[in-house]
């Protein structure tokens, strides 16, 4: 699992509108989220194969709390940036993520993301909000402290609309 931004935005070549939507949500969207996160842009729009996707940061998202004092955060500062919500360790122990805790996976408030093993008893790690996993901050089996950030969740607004004017097959990033 990586929280590194994806360098290339893959373009969908599908002709079928339905397949095109699937390809968008499964391939294009995660990559776009990563690119948006890596950038300083507030909004990002892509046109491809008759679809236009616009991603916008949610400026009203709550700021994550400081995680100072944590072994992971010491010296390097808080690894979580200022947008989105953060799933945190509910206890001190070993982190065991679920297999689908990967960047780009869409989650809803309360969804199980993994667990913390505390002396053999597991405590659930759940999504604190709806959104898309933007970062995974701890590895499988890693020792984590109480409150340690485990995953970032972007409350992105994704707008899908058919775009009759878009004809090119190359993705185009528009800075607004």
């Amino acid at each position, binding site marked *: 699992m990586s929280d590194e931004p994806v360098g290339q935005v893959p373009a969908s070549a599908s002709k079928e509108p339905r397949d095109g939507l699937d390809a968008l949500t499964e391939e294009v969207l995660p990559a776009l989220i990563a690119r948006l996160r890596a950038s300083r842009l507030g909004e990002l729009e892509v046109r491809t194969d008759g679809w236009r996707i616009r991603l916008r940061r949610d400026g009203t998202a709550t700021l994550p709390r*400081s995680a*100072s*004092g*944590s*072994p992971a955060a010491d010296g390097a500062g808080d690894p979580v940036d200022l947008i989105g919500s953060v799933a945190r360790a509910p*206890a*001190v*122990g*070993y982190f065991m993520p679920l297999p689908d805790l990967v960047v780009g996976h869409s989650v809803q408030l309360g969804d199980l993301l993994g667990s913390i093993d*505390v*002396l053999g*008893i597991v405590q659930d790690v759940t999504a604190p909000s709806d959104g898309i996993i933007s970062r995974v901050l701890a590895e499988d089996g890693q*020792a*984590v*402290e*109480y*409150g*340690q950030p485990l995953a970032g969740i972007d409350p992105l607004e994704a707008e899908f609309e058919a775009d009759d004017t878009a004809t090119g097959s190359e993705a185009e990033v528009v800075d607004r």
Partner: protein
Amino acid sequence: MIERVLIANRGEIAVRILRACRSMGIEAVVAHSEADTESRAVRMADESICIGPAESARSYLSAAAVISAALVSGCDAIHPGYGFLSEDGGFAEMTRAHDLTFIGPSPEVLERFASKAGTRELVAAQGLPVVPGSVGMLRDDAHALAEAERVGYPLLIKPSAGGGGKGMRMARTPRELQQALTVCRSEARAAFGDDSLYLEKWLEQTRHVEVQVLIDKYGQGVHIGERDCSVQRRHQKLVEESPSPAIDDATRVELAEAAIRVAVAAGYQNVGTLEFLVDGEGRYFFIEINARIQVEHPVTEMLSGIDIVAEQIRLAAGEKLGYGQEAVRLRGHAIEFRINAEDVKADFQPQAGLVEHYVPPGGAGIRMETHLYSGYDVPPYYDSLLGKLIIWAPDREAAMARSRVALRELLVEGIETNIPFHRAILEDETFLSGGFDTNLLDRKGAAAFLSAVPTDEQA
């Protein structure tokens, strides 16, 4: 051998343990709650680990959180400090089950001395006089009233699991007893997770004198003299000193020797304190054993030069004490003032908030044990203890003179503290004469003391 210790406590004692570990070449990891991420111990530590939210029950009092933290941070021992899990036999047992060393008595020793009522029977069997009291735990109100009739009023209701004066009440009549039982039960349950209570006869005009002992796992032990903790407010110790000004040298030696003999015979191990009440005739009555490092341990360190926390770690690791009573030399007089975040003008209400400015005192024989720093935000969730000012001098009078100087220098700005109270008590004739009992403050009243604060108090 212990190589890496998890410090499962907060405040000044976490700082004290961290220093002891460092002086012994032992690594330390400071466990802390979310409310203590900016604590001095966390800032000083090479490593720290958050174990839970501010609420003690889910952090400092959570055995699972503390042990899990020790395991994931690679520690081989846990120092529980005082309060919290320090005298919890179940926690000590769980610590051992995870191949960690509990820095304190073994689980068996803690279990044996866990019940204060049981401990009374154990030491009485060794010939130590105990304060008359109820036999066993109080089952219910009816049992309490019956036992009270047998022992006689006035009485002290005490939690069996307790310490620090929490859950303790005095009752002069059956009516007072019934009212107090409910309060004591809920206080004891909140503070110690155990609401068993017992009764002790209230002895008028007594002093609180305790003996510090060090005993290794092989039954070799020494005492390090006594401490007089008679300056109390509502059963909370405020000032402690050694030697006790109330007992003569013959009684002093007899008390300390009886304490170490009985503690060894009863199977006690590690550091501990035997508490006694001493009456006007110098007769002493055992009350309880504190199976932990105590807040006031520096008083004894100043007289003996022994690092009690380091000795505690060494003994928990299974080392031999390595010296006998003749090697323990006590010199001079030491006195400790507990500096609390309390508003003395508002019935000692606990205070919290930003310490804008902190300046410790200095000079010959002056020691400050604290977690304070300028800019520290005192969280509202815990004990009000901010630190301890400990003074050593060749004799009591010189110690009082140094204390006045140090208490004028000590500056804590931004929140109210009980420093004015300590300055006042140093002007009190009864205190200075040494002829006071545990009721000194409650009888005279805080206001009367405070009115005696010298007016030229600007440092």
